[in-house]
């Protein structure tokens, strides 16, 4: 019987388990995502050590690498400062960290890895971190009465009919944040796998143009959007008092 190309083994976009172990009585797997994540982390750690060495020496007239490092830090600080204002000092470390991590993860498809962000188990914790940051800041900087009023928002505070809907919309924030990143990266990965799987005899040089769109452009935009939305939500939770 003829089998469709999706059912054959040429097209392979799934996460694979590599190594099984027991964790507190549960069956757990080391998957391809872990391996790719480890490689991304190695790249980042190597870059960080090199950058730290260069900055520690700190030449008066910066060389090429020192210039690149300073440029990255300046640009990231500029992004955080532009959208968080006064509270940027506290958050630029966190935002820059997740920015660089998500960026390198997204464009690691260019290195032949399966991007770690194309696994929902990687993007959902990032969304949960944003969720925790939002509500930590809300509790820290706003009065309980104001939070209650905003949770009952279209109706007056003594009539909490709208409360469940507002709670659901708060819970939807991390889910939609992480699903957006996940689905974008996953769709890019699937498109590239389909191109290489179906057109493997003529996929010679022109897929590079598709890589520029699906890996570079889409990855950079989604990284930017994730960090932008995180900053918007967190500075909204901090309010005007800080």
């Amino acid at each position, binding site marked *: *019987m003829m089998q469709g190309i*999706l*059912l054959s083994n040429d097209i392979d*976009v*799934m996460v694979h388990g590599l190594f099984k172990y027991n964790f507190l009585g549960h069956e757990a797997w080391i998957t391809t995502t872990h391996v790719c994540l480890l490689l991304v982390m190695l790249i980042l750690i190597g870059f960080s050590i090199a950058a730290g060495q260069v900055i520690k020496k700190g030449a008066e007239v910066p060389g090429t690498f020192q210039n690149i490092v300073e440029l990255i830090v300046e640009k990231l600080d500029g992004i955080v400062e532009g959208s968080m204002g006064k509270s940027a000092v506290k958050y630029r470390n966190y935002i820059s960290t997740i920015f660089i991590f998500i960026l390198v993860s997204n464009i690691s498809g260019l290195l032949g890895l399966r991007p770690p962000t194309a696994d929902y188990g990687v993007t959902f914790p990032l969304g949960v971190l944003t969720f925790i940051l939002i509500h930590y800041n809300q509790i820290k900087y706003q009065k309980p009465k104001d939070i209650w009023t905003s949770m009952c928002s279209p109706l007056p505070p003594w009539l909490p009919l709208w409360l469940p809907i507002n709670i659901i919309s708060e819970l939807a924030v991390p889910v*939609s944040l992480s*699903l*957006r990143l996940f*689905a*974008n990266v*996953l*769709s890019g990965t*699937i498109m590239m796998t389909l191109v290489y799987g179906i057109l493997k005899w003529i996929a010679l040089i022109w897929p590079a143009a598709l890589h520029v769109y699906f890996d570079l452009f889409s990855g950079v*935009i*989604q990284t*930017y*959007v994730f960090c*932008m*939305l995180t900053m*918007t939500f967190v500075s909204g939770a901090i309010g005007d008092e800080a």
Partner: protein
Amino acid sequence: MNFDENFILGCSAIGAGLAVIAGIGPGVGQGIAAGHAAAAVGRNPGAKSDITTTMITGQAVAETTGLYGLLVAILLLFVKPLLW
């Protein structure tokens, strides 16, 4: 592979095709956002970078609903939940 599995796979493919019709909405929405951003740049060329930032963020948020449809299609085609 017996008849039942083939039937379910075919229905999954039809369902995946129907699910990505959700892409129409974000397409229209992103087009409207880009058009208004172009008009805004025409009126105030100095604010180009701010307008671009706002446009990209808004478009990415508008894209989410389409991505949910895409996700359903991907699940139907690759994970095949109806065959379990």
